[in-house]
């Protein structure tokens, strides 16, 4: 049940005693996520909010609680190491919320994850939510609703915008995955599309892309070749100039590569209906359910 997370997710919060980590740990617990442990080196032995045991290391947390997933809220300079630690400890899913992680760190972390059969989501992402079941990250639980639409996106608030439109249009979500706005991320559009295709609760998928790189084009080809479920798309950054980083480290048109026009064309050529405005995603998706 769910995409990468679900009712059997037993979550560690890395950086649980930090400002962001503690805030979102409470939000996740409030949403019903099984937060089984926190990790902050040097703070082992305490309990977070008198409820969640805190450990010095992920290995101890896994040994004591049987955790199988972790979410990382530590500062950028420690984020990749937190990922290495979680994977070394046998964690299968590591969601890195942290923004500002050096690309070079991710280039080293991803092969480590592959070697160990672990999945990284992010970095610089809002995480995942399976409405009514489990939330890992920072996606606001109050805007989602249970339903048949799978959402995958490179951005944060734009995703909230789309989710909000869907919910208001009466279209609930099977799962929402923010894969992150960096040039190198652990989980791709294709990974998510494949999971949605195999997820019985998902009937259609919205793919929210943006300028930079070629992930959307690769995803479009995947949709055309491997998906039976309808997919609708949106691309942010049609009005962005080339060569300038638009906030996200990955949102940059390099030379002729990564333009919105190219991505929109690729969507259209591969049978993905493209919304002009965020609110149209709900219209297009509604028409396909």
């Amino acid at each position, binding site marked *: 049940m769910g995409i990468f997370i679900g009712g059997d997710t037993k979550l560690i919060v890395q950086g649980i005693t930090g400002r962001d980590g503690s805030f979102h740990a409470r939000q996740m617990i409030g949403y019903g996520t099984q937060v089984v442990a926190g990790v902050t080196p040097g703070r082992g032995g305490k309990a977070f909010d008198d409820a969640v045991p805190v450990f010095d290391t992920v290995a101890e947390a896994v040994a004591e609680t049987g955790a199988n997933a972790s979410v990382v809220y530590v500062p950028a300079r420690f984020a990749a190491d937190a990922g290495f630690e979680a994977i070394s400890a046998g964690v299968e899913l590591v969601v890195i919320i942290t923004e500002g992680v050096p*690309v*070079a760190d991710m280039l080293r972390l*991803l092969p480590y994850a592959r070697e160990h059969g672990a999945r990284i989501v992010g970095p610089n992402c809002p995480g995942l939510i399976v409405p009514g079941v489990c939330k890992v990250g920072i996606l*606001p639980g109050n805007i989602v609703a249970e339903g048949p639409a799978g959402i995958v*996106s490179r951005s944060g608030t734009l995703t909230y915008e789309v989710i909000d439109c869907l919910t208001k249009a009466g279209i609930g979500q099977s799962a929402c995955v923010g894969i992150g706005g960096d*040039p190198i991320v652990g989980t791709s559009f294709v990974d998510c599309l494949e999971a949605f295709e195999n997820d019985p609760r998902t009937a259609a998928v919205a793919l929210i892309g943006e300028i930079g790189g070629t992930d959307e084009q690769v995803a479009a080809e995947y949709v055309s070749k491997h998906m039976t479920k309808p997919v609708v798309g949106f691309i942010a950054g049609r009005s962005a100039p080339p060569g300038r980083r*638009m906030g*996200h480290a990955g949102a940059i048109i390099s030379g002729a590569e990564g333009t919105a026009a190219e991505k929109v064309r690729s969507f259209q050529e591969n049978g993905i209906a493209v919304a002009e405005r965020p*609110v149209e995603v709900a219209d297009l998706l509604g028409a396909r359910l």
Partner: protein
Amino acid sequence: MNIHEYQARAILRDHGIPVPEGFVAETPGEVRRAAEEIGAQVVVKAQVHAGGRGKAGGVKLASTPAEAQELAGAILGMEIKGHAVRKVLVGPAETIASEAYVGIVLDRAQQADAVMVSPAGGVDIEEVAATNPAAIMTRRIDPRYGLFDHQAGELGRFLYPEAEKAKQARSAAAILQKLYEAYLGSGATLAEINPLIVNGAGEVLAIDAKMNIDDNALFRLPQIEALRDPEAEDPAETAARAAGLSYVRLDGNIGCCVNGAGLAMATMDLVKHYGGEPANFLDIGGSSNPAKVVAALELITADSAVSSVLFNIFGGITRCDDVARGIVQATDSFDLQIPITIRLTGTNQAEGLAILARRGFQALSDMDGAVRAAVELGG
């Protein structure tokens, strides 16, 4: 972050790559003295964060110090793609037997760094890739193992395949290894030498150098951060960075203030969709700090082309009441002469709307309506 050619050359030299001597000058007089010091034909090259310098007239050959001074007078102060030239690099004009291209670049699709080389150097490599892809050899680097010697050797032989150029092939292989070290050590996402030449003496030399730096790596590379040239960047963008904002100046009249990069781009797109032109990209980020909102509004309104301000806030972590407080603070502290349209929804929406209402601001709750209104108000 971009760094100048002369800075990239210094990094390469520090890593043992043969780079001819060069002087940085900010006045024609300094250029003359540099040319006298070199004592031979020199090249004067504009140092700006823009490509196509040669076509724009920013690279000139001078036979005498006097000519160098004169040419520098023309180059210093010229504009290349909107960038004013404040510095030039002066170096000896090398005799060039052949020109090659070598570069290391982050390959997003393959999630790896890649080395690209081509014996067709001195021209735009994207053009070579488009017109003559067989003239390029690319090899991926496994970051766990680095650039293998046999890879570097093969790339070097691709550049200089002739048996009598085995020495040049070995030099190029060694340069590639050093270039990868420089790339890693500088947090680069691009490091290229174009052209890599063989000079009259048969030596392999790096003539031009370009590096782009991963902003995210700068926190641990103070020596690279120190290369930042604020004069070469848009002052508004420098101010934005200091305030923790992500800002890009554009040509339109609708000033946009949004939380989240994706939503900010989508907002710009929607402005355009409804017939307006965005004046900027601006992401106030995830945290809800009223001071950031104040700084954002200052930045937007400092652009005299802005005739309408649009706030588009979808509160998640960002709290609507904090944003509302920031808007109130900003409009208290300076006299906003242009209309402002506010879209505010999400976390603490009611509190935010109440704060705004108390000051006479009426906020909208849907993005489409707000963008349409802002475009109309912008005229």
